């Protein structure tokens, strides 16, 4: 495969990432989407900042190929947030697929006229790959939340367990 599709996406990188970020932030209610889009300070707007930065990095990572080790932390920076925001699991991760539609909407005609459909399909496999890794990250985040809840319960009762001589090293370590 030549890199024609990659070149085309690189040329349009800025526009595509902007659209992707905008579409992702529109999954929040409109008032919140506005705030997440406009506030630039990363500490005052952790959600908007993380999504903008994460999508930009993940796009570059997809252009460069798919290195799971590389994309995992990038996905983590976004999925960790989505995993606690009350979305259904599918809606937590759907934003990663938005780029497919955005590319087709924005560059579809050009891709077709240049005969890059097959190359696009290959690129879209990378998007699917990203989604699968994101699913692992999401599951890990939810597992972490569950572990935290369990250990909180144990911590709250540590003194009781100690006093009742029910505290073993295994309990403490878990």
């Amino acid at each position: 495969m030549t890199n024609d599709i990659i070149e085309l996406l690189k040329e349009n990188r800025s526009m595509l990432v902007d659209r992707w970020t905008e579409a992702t932030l529109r999954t929040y209610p409109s008032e919140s989407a506005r705030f997440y889009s406009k506030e630039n300070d990363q500490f005052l707007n952790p959600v908007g900042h993380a999504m903008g930065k994460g999508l930009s990095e993940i796009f570059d990572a997809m252009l460069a190929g798919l290195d799971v080790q590389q994309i995992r932390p990038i996905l983590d920076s976004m999925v960790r947030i989505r995993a606690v925001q009350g979305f259904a699991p599918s809606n937590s991760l759907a934003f990663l697929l938005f780029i497919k539609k955005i590319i087709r909407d924005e560059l579809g005609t050009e891709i077709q006229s240049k005969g890059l459909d097959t190359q696009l399909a290959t690129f879209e496999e990378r998007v699917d790959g990203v989604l699968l890794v994101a699913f692992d990250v999401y599951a890990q985040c939810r597992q972490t939340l569950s572990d935290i809840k369990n250990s909180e319960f144990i911590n709250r009762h540590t003194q009781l367990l100690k006093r009742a001589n029910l505290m073993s090293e295994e309990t403490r370590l878990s």
Partner: protein
Amino acid sequence: MSQAPKPEELLRVSHIPPKKDWMDPRVDLIPGTWGYPGKASSLETLGLPNPREWNPTDEDWKLPPNWKEIIHEGLKERLEKYRSLKVFLDICVRCGACADKCHFFIGSGDPKNMPVLRAELLRSIYRKDFTTVGRMLGTFAGGRELTEDVIKEWFYYFHQCTECRRCSLYCPYGIDTAEITIVVRELLNLIGVNIDWILGAAANCYRTGNHLGLEPHTFKGNIDFLVDDIEEYVGVRLNPTFNRKGAEVLFIAPSGDVFADPGIFTYMGYLMLFEHIGLDYTISTYASEGGNFGLFTSQETMKRLNSKMYAEAKRLGVKWILGGECGHMWRVLHQYMDTMNGPADFLEVPKSPITGTVFDNAKSTKMIHIVEFMADLIHHGKLKLNPKRNDYRRTTWHDSCNVSRGMGMFEEPRYVLKSVCNNFFEMPENTIREQTFCCGGGTGLNAGEFEYLRMMGGMPRAFAVKHVQEKHGVNLLVNVCALDRAILPPLMDYWAPEVSVSGLTELVANALVMEGEHDRPTDLRGEDIPGLEGDE
């Protein structure tokens, strides 16, 4: 998390949420973001109205038949009683300066968590029922009917506010949204709508003197355990006294420090500090709680719970009261105690017996915070410290809302921390001091079932910690609030793993050189101190 969609629903792909009018009071009770209801037994203990078994997910909340009248009269009474409430309801011009300042809005993206909109949930009812324009023009003037859905909406959103007052800082009129939350929770309590984690703690406190419901022998037993640990790790046997009449000082800490990890290490710190300076103090097993969940229930409950401190101080005949590391305890003390139960004329203005400093700031309440007390001791060189013992800690400071924004305690804790630890790094300027971000779980939102809400609400705080963790290798988040010590560890586990949490006095005590101590290769947690193994 809402219900997972069916396959055919998934095929109808639209990820843009439907536009919702804020006036529509109906709420989705998203699991992990609301609290279980107060138990009937807790309400009965406190003598609060409408004790019953109910469930927020049920259609029928079993409100009293005349609930509307109760709320109306309750609001009327409070508008007459609190001039501030009336002003806050009248003067908001909806400029939106506060809108994006709430940690719950920032983290959740739910517009009803914008402070202006959250307050509007009450203001709209006020406007409809208490203003002429609202009565005449109804919804056109921003008024709403008081319905059961409004009560459910209040229950949901006013338990998504931690009364941290960050929004108030940015309001050009100084509207205190925390006071609006306080009043709405009070109104809800009039009809028995409340959460168990608050009511259970308040009832426990009313019955036994502390939130955890520890009875005197258990309370003492736990502290004895800490005394044993100090002996093991430090080599000094301490003998704290309980309910001792004639002591100079009555020491009251949040009970979480007696029981919960990591607060217990802070309590060990208190005991070591007092031994180190030879303070003539006693601990009460009756006034065994510094916190006051009455603040999150009603003015009357807060007053009753607070009064036990003075009653016990009077009974024991102490000169003044010293408070442990707590946040909202300090809001109550600093802003309400004196008018509720003071002035405590039978006590003396707190005077440090070690330095002679008179704490005029507590002239009326007769109670000071341990951080002020410690800062004064260090300033006068009264503590023998070896800060090197904390070199393995790379610390940052979390300004707890109540003591920082609530009462301006910014410098004292930093002074103490820098005196006992060589590695200190501030978080970004717009996330500390007056602008500090809440931990996300104050005002009784630390119940297990609020797990997702806390992760969202604590997100801005956690991201600032993560920043200093990545930039400076920070591994310890120090604070001066018992709720923080309970709420921040899981928050860190999720957002900034490897950052642990501690109270300030724990670090002070770890650096204290105690008379008669043995080699101390471990800290107060019994963990090895890297680099000190062969040093002492």
